[in-house]
């Protein structure tokens, strides 16, 4: 594993804040989220639905949909401040420097444009090559993501492919302009177990070949366990914990992290054992309690948790925002 502390990060996100203007009242969807991705690293981002995972991804490449708006923080990619880029330059980053894999392969491909055309368009937009060269590269990528008979696939339309094949194309589209970073937003959630394993394998192979950095957004801890080098846990728009993957499972610092792990039914668990559930539900937007967002569900919550938002504290290789972090013994 590459030591994250020795190199400078490829992507550095500091205090990223995203708000929604609902009836004139600004609601915070992301509250001062900070993390970094190092070159060649896979950063996993986990959290329950609505935790703000997708917004984080979208905010980085400035793809937030209107009621959502980035209101603060800095985003630096290889020294370049993305948050200050004009739209035109941002377009160069998107796809060119940062590839994005969407969750649902069924809806993220344009149904009336052929696979090949979509690939060529993307390649031409970034690599300044055209015509036959782009075509050749597109064919290469179709082959690289493991689709047989690239020439035939090139002419096909998305509906002629199965879900797994489409997701492969989506990945090809994200990677075909040789970006430095790939953000994959739940790349396997919509897929079946068997296909999921295929896609994860593909991502891993591509990652090994090209050393591209990766932000892997998921809510499946199993995927995290297999794929991530480091993990950021989001809760209600805030970072709960950032740890190397081994530490996260072995010794989670934040009670929420532990709750999440224990609530996940896993084959390793004994069939007779009762699942541990976290009481309550994640607060919705605008209903975040004062203090630590997790305090109403937390078994360790005390007065200070209700009074102030715990700051992100770094300890050894991990960072967490909790006043009463769990010790290794408890886990």
């Amino acid at each position: 594993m590459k030591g994250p502390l020795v190199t400078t990060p490829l992507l550095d996100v500091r205090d990223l804040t995203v708000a929604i203007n609902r009836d004139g009242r600004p609601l915070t969807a992301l509250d001062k989220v900070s993390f970094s991705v190092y070159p060649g690293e896979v950063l996993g981002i986990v959290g329950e639905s609505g935790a703000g995972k997708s917004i984080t991804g979208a905010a980085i490449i400035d793809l937030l949909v209107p009621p959502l708006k980035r209101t603060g923080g800095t985003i630096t990619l290889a020294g370049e401040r993305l948050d200050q880029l004009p739209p035109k330059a941002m377009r160069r980053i998107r796809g060119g420097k940062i590839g994005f894999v969407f969750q649902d392969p069924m809806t993220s491909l344009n149904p009336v444009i052929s696979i090949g055309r979509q690939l060529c368009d993307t390649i031409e937009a970034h690599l300044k090559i055209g015509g036959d060269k782009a075509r050749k590269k597109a064919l290469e990528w179709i082959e690289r993501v493991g689709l047989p008979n690239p020439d035939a696939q090139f002419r096909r339309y998305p509906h002629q492919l199965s879900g797994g094949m489409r997701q492969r194309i989506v990945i090809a589209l994200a990677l075909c302009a040789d970006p430095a970073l790939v953000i994959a937003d739940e790349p396997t959630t919509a897929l079946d177990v068997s296909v999921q394993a295929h896609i994860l394998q593909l991502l891993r192979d591509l990652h090994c070949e090209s050393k591209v950095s990766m932000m892997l957004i998921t809510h499946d801890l199993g995927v995290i366990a297999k794929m991530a080098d480091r993990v950021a846990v989001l809760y209600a728009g805030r970072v709960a914990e950032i740890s190397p993957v081994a530490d996260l499972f072995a010794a989670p610092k934040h009670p929420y992290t532990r709750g999440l792990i224990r609530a996940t039914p896993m084959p390793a668990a004994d069939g007779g054992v009762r699942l541990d559930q976290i009481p309550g539900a994640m607060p919705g937007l605008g209903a975040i309690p004062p203090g630590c967002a997790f305090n109403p569900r937390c078994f360790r919550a005390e007065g200070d948790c209700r009074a102030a938002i715990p700051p992100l504290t770094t300890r050894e290789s991990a960072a967490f925002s909790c006043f009463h972090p769990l010790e290794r013994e408890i886990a």
Partner: protein
Amino acid sequence: MSSAPDFLILNHVSKIYRRSQGFLERLKKADASGTKAVSDVSLTVRHGETMGLVGESGCGKSTLARLVSGLMEPTAGEIAFRRDAAGRTPRLQMIFQDPYSSLNGRWTIEDIVAEPIRVHRLRQGRAAIRARVDELLTQVGLSPADAEKYPQEFSGGQRQRICIARALAGEPEFLILDEPTSALDVSVQAQILNLLRDLQKNLSLTSLFITHNLSVVRIMADRIGVMYLGELVEEAPSEELFRRPHHPYTRLLIDAAPDMDIGDRSLHPIAGELPNPAFPPRGCRFHTRCPFAGDVCRTTAPPQKTTEAGGMFRCHLDLDLSNASANMPASKAKTA
């Protein structure tokens, strides 16, 4: 367990979804083929038992559930419930995967939960019905005050609780759960699974639990059936199935799901893709993806075999797959 009486028997049940035919096709009396979503499934569920059903998407799990629930008629075979002294079949209820589409957005929670009570006349009078609704809502962890609200005001997990309350309101003897938690977050899923397990224990329900998540089915089911392309390829008591699967597909399925073991980060994709269910392969349906497939698998449908533990599987080979990931042959099939 095995001494309990049979509750539901499926006898060589098949379901074919026919393609809608054009006028000319019908004139030509073209072959009446279609998607054989469920093919020749025989299954017995005993009283008080939870039968789990797993398989990849499109293998016919939901179709089977709809057949059992009576929403659809099987094309062939029969489905028989145990009848009570009066010759009545047991009341059944069903809980669906999508908590958003399974509640009518124009009805209040009270009306939704009360519907089975009213239809089956389980309680008489407004007050009695309301009291029962409140009781049920409390039972699934909601508050009686929620009865006046509309489904839109609830989160997915809460909705699924409402669905459970509605199902319970019908005082079912048999409960079909079609992927009841796969739309939910882990933390909510744990809550719902716990709730369901409590209910199973307390109400001694017989149920059919469908999911594609093996971990979930392992926790929830007493016996598990594995389906592939409409066929039941293996069926065994829960622990037995995980300990010593007999069908290669079961093994591969178990391995394919990523676990939280960070010591071993290898992935185990099943080679190849699921064939089009409308045109299943000849012989053993799994042979296109099976690492052990031999010539016989490509030509002849495998026989049904029983195991000493009371399980069943369909495979030509009799493999010991108890810890197979190590000695699996490399995949031969390519992604199609």
